[in-house]
């Protein structure tokens, strides 16, 4: 079994007591959590706009929109039920049955150390082999560089997310099937960002529908195809090909609610890339979100990276004559 990748989880810290916030921050560092503090007046907008969260750390004393403590926990759960809530209490009081449905774990500040097991099971329930995580970023950057000419690329450190909100308006899903995994890769991008990229990239290509939605979707589809092909070539052995006819589950996408479900409660592996079109002097970065959702099967102990043989050393784009 490969060593697991060191991945982090972004958590919202809803805490106004300075001392407690500092203690929580130190705890987060040890647990590989990325704490983001939110003032009550911004909480709802942050919850609506954040798409890469893993959990909420809520203090009983934290108040927002006239709600506080457990009542606020119920409201947060109603808005974002996929995010586990860790409730900091000042005294030992048992959670009611209703509270237990929305609060993953209640704790006092002096009990933080004992939280490690519940953090591990709640937020890090899947481990990802380090060569897989590193390899995904490498092959994706290569594919993007190949697809979009004259761009600058940067990949953020990958994180683990639990939320189910969709980024942007355009996204693609493609199945990944091997002996060690079954699931999907999802790419998400804002339509206007893709349009901006495409208007430059297609400058020299003869096309009758350069600005049409169809052309945009095609570019995005081909980008997905390039990454998928590179993933298969690197991580999926040839003998796994017969696995592709196995069971599937419905993928639920609710556009108005920006919601997508793969039928599994497991967390997803998330990468984020920034692309700058070098032809534009002061263009803002275009974000590309990439998620790996192994909802049908996940056996990292069987994971292996394909050995590059002399026969397959040919660089992409070169012609191999038989």
């Amino acid at each position, binding site marked *: 079994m490969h060593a697991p990748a060191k991945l982090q989880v972004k958590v919202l810290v809803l805490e106004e007591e300075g001392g407690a916030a500092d203690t929580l921050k130190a705890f987060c560092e040890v647990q590989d959590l990325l704490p983001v503090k939110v003032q009550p007046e911004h909480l709802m907008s942050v919850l609506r706009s954040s798409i890469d969260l893993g959990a909420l750390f809520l203090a009983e004393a934290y108040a927002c929109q006239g709600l506080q403590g457990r009542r606020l926990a119920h409201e947060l759960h109603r808005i974002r039920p996929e995010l586990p809530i860790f409730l900091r209490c000042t005294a030992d009081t048992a959670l009611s049955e209703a509270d237990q449905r929305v609060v993953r774990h209640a704790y006092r500040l002096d009990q933080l150390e004992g939280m490690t097991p519940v953090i591990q099971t709640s937020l890090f329930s899947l481990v990802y082999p380090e060569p897989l995580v590193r390899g995904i970023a490498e092959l994706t950057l290569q594919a993007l560089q190949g697809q979009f000419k004259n761009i600058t690329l940067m990949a953020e450190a990958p994180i683990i997310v639990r939320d189910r909100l969709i980024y942007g308006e355009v996204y693609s899903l493609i199945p990944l099937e091997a002996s060690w995994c079954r699931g999907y890769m999802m790419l998400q991008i804002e339509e206007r960002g893709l349009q901006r990229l495409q208007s430059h990239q297609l400058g020299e290509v003869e096309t009758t529908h350069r600005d049409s939605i169809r052309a945009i979707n095609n570019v995005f589809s081909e980008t997905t195809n390039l990454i998928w092909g590179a993933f298969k070539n690197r991580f999926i052995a040839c003998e796994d090909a017969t696995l592709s006819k196995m069971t599937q589950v419905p993928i639920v996408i609710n556009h108005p609610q920006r919601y997508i479900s793969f039928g599994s409660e497991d967390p997803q592996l998330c990468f984020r890339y920034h692309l700058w079109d070098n032809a534009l002097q002061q263009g803002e970065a275009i974000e590309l979100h990439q998620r790996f959702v192994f909802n049908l099967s996940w056996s990292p102990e069987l994971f292996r990276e394909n050995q590059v043989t002399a026969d397959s050393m040919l660089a992409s784009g070169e012609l*191999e004559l038989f």
Partner: protein
Amino acid sequence: MAQVLVVDDSSTVRDEVAGFLKKNGLDVATANDGRDGLAKLKADPKIKLVVSDVNMPNMDGLTMAEKIRSELGNKTVNIVMLTTENSPVMKERGKAAGVKGWIVKPFKGDAVIATFKKLCE
């Protein structure tokens, strides 16, 4: 009448490859899957080179290559696969079907244009 037939379900790839080949002086026709490609090849005896994707709906590129050999018995048409696939198993199947060459996407025209022109002679 065309010299080259570009077969790919992605219009982005078709436009890119066909545009590049036309700019380099070749006459190009396009098809959007293996079934379409086979029909267009049957209808145009001038085609000397087929540049085809592997994974396509209706009929994949390797099946199309096999059908070109079995149905047309055509030894004068050269077939080159342009695909994200890089597995030895797929390449072996391609060789058995008479495929002349294999390119892993993305397409880099400058690296292959000289060979493509030779294959069109």
